[in-house]
């Protein structure tokens, strides 16, 4: 098997990249895939905390790159899922500790043994972002239905297009259907109107996400959470399945419009 290397980025900070990586990793690994996730946010690491693995860190990605340990020694196996591994970021270094060629070398060694390598990109468009996209086969852009997040996402998509990193796919995170209906929040269509990329999924606002973060148990495990269901659906779409969008709104016409938008190139 050769792994699909997927980088999750956004431009704007705080929109839900790390949450998306953790939940997609859990959803994919629960669905029969072998997954490694890599925290690309050197100096401000969070993926370990969201997965509940922070107490198990002995070595990190910079230790691997600087040769202080072997790759396998830095890989932390998930508590519940035997096919899910994490390579944590270093907390006491910064983004300059890693270069795009380091990332390419590291990921080359992972490709043969896994189905998916998920890379959590830091916010921004500088060195950390460049490191995160260097080895990507595919880039997912996470945004919120909020004007500054969408502006930043547009910038990032422009950079990805200019650098010929293949077509980006979009995850709209923290959509609140009630606010959308009251016209107090951008709709998914408003966002897609500006960004004009393939829609991979919409994750609704859900307080269970924060509860899960604080417990180190991603919401994708929670069968009752709508956000969890959305992440599970996105994972299936990543594997090539066609999955209808969740009915976040009782109006059937919205669901149909999103179906059409999802098919738009």
């Amino acid at each position: 098997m050769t792994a699909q290397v997927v980088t999750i980025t956004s431009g704007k900070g705080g929109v839900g990249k790390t949450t998306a990586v953790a939940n997609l990793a859990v959803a994919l690994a629960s669905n029969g895939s072998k997954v490694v996730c890599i925290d690309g946010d050197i100096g401000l690491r969070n993926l370990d905390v969201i997965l509940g693995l922070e107490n198990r860190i002995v070595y990190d990605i910079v230790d691997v790159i600087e040769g202080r340990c072997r790759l396998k020694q830095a890989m932390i196996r998930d508590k519940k899922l035997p096919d899910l591994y994490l390579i944590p970021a270093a907390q006491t270094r910064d983004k300059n500790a890693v270069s795009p060629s380091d990332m390419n070398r590291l990921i080359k060694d992972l490709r043969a043994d896994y189905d998916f390598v998920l890379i959590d990109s830091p916010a921004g468009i500088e060195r950390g972002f460049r490191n995160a996209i260097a080895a990507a086969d595919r880039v997912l852009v996470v945004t919120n239905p909020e004007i500054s997040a969408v502006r930043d996402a547009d910038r990032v998509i422009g950079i990805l297009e200019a650098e010929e990193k293949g077509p980006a796919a979009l995850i709209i995170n923290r959509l609140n259907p009630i606010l959308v209906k009251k016209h107090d929040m951008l709709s998914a269509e408003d966002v897609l109107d500006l960004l004009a990329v393939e829609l991979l999924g919409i994750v609704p606002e859900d307080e269970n996400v924060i509860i899960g973060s604080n417990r180190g148990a991603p919401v994708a495990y929670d069968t009752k959470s709508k956000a969890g269901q959305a992440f599970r659906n996105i994972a299936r779409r990543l594997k090539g399945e066609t999955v209808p969008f969740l009915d976040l709104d009782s109006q059937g016409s919205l669901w149909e419009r999103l179906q059409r938008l999802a098919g738009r190139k």
Partner: protein
Amino acid sequence: MNETNSLIQIKGLRDGLLVSLDDAPWEEQRSALILQVDSQPDFFKGARLALDVASQVLHVNELVELRDQLSERSISLWAVISESPTTEKTAQLLGLATRISKPRPEESRQFSVENLGEDPALFLNRTLRSGTRIEFAGHVVVLGDVNPGAEIVAEGNVIIWGRLRGMVHAGSKGNKKAVICALDLSPMRLRIAEEISAMLKPQEHPGPEIARINEDGKLQAEFWSPG
């Protein structure tokens, strides 16, 4: 001093370095540059580098590779100057400057846009995303939208067959007769020559509009009507 260094001339600029490369195959130019940098790492570390590649044609992957290699050596590449339109376009796509403050002496691309008649135009068959900056000594035509955060600076007219939501400066060298047209004129900012737009009222029913400097010298937008 080995032979490869003869390909490279280095000059200090006010705020960084200008490296000029003599004509040669790109691989030779690139390795000569990296060799030069590696032989004097402290001199180059932390430098802002403008690169003059003369007539070399560079594509996205080549320029990205070079920028990454320089960045690994703590050198920030901020401008790529060349005679090749392809290279200039590549540089612009990657957000690099294509001009430094002192114009190169051979540069004589001054042509008059006084008449705004049959002059060269840059045709862009795509939407300009946020962060894109297009600078052109002529007219600019865009078949697509200009998103908020995108900028066009043209010495001539700017025609947008799409939604203008970004920033446009037409007649940038002082031509007051320049116009800006868009199917949906909702810009962040408009400039024609020296005039800057006041708040253009957002339209309830957007339609094709043309913005120009009127008889009172003010920037004004009006709906398109034939004739």
